[in-house]
């Protein structure tokens, strides 16, 4: 069950990140509500997942789904740059962050 919580936490984080774009474009209450509740639900499920899973593993998976997923959705839905260099450096930052969470 804790893995289900962890994946939900990652999906809610993706929602939160995507709503940042939505909010800057539309400035409506729905986006702001989904932004805040997305990140809020994400933290809640992460905390639930961490009750059973090791903290480093939980953080690493959560970051991977949320930040990478958020970047991919930004490219698909909001036309953020898709050039190879940008994708390479985002992958570099996130891999290092995931590595740090696993070795700490």
């Amino acid at each position, binding site marked *: 069950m804790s893995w289900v919580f962890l994946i939900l936490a990652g999906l809610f984080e993706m929602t939160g*990140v*995507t709503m*940042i*774009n939505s*909010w*800057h474009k539309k400035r409506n209450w729905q986006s702001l509500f989904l*932004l805040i509740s997305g*990140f809020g639900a994400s933290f809640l499920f992460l905390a639930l997942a961490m009750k059973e899973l090791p903290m480093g593993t939980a953080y690493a998976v959560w*970051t991977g789904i*949320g*930040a990478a997923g*958020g*970047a*991919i*959705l*930004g*490219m698909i839905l*909001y036309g*953020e*740059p898709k*050039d190879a*260099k*940008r994708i*390479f*450096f*985002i992958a*570099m*930052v*996130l*891999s*290092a*962050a995931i*590595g*740090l*969470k696993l*070795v*700490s």
Partner: protein
Amino acid sequence: MQWLKVFIAAFFEVFWVIGLKHADDPLSWAGTILCIAVSFYLMIMAGKVLPVGTVYAVFVGLGTAGTVLSEIIFFGEPLKLSKIILVLILLLGVLGLKLVTNEDKGAESS
């Protein structure tokens, strides 16, 4: 200026991550919540001009590096070579993103 927002957001992120772990009285919890608000506000605002995917990756990455380093410096976590190498890779990635990001997304600059 936009990048400065991301860097300050990550700086405050380190404080609230430490706060979530170590806060044990109303004052430290209030400080933790204030840091969450400041860091998310700055990160969200930077996403108005810079690509959100880039901003969020740098925010999460620098926050993680800062947290790992402060746990070594202030909370006696062991210093490992693997941590230093990963922090350096992470910083190179951030530098790379800063260099390849075009700041004219169409929104106003400040």
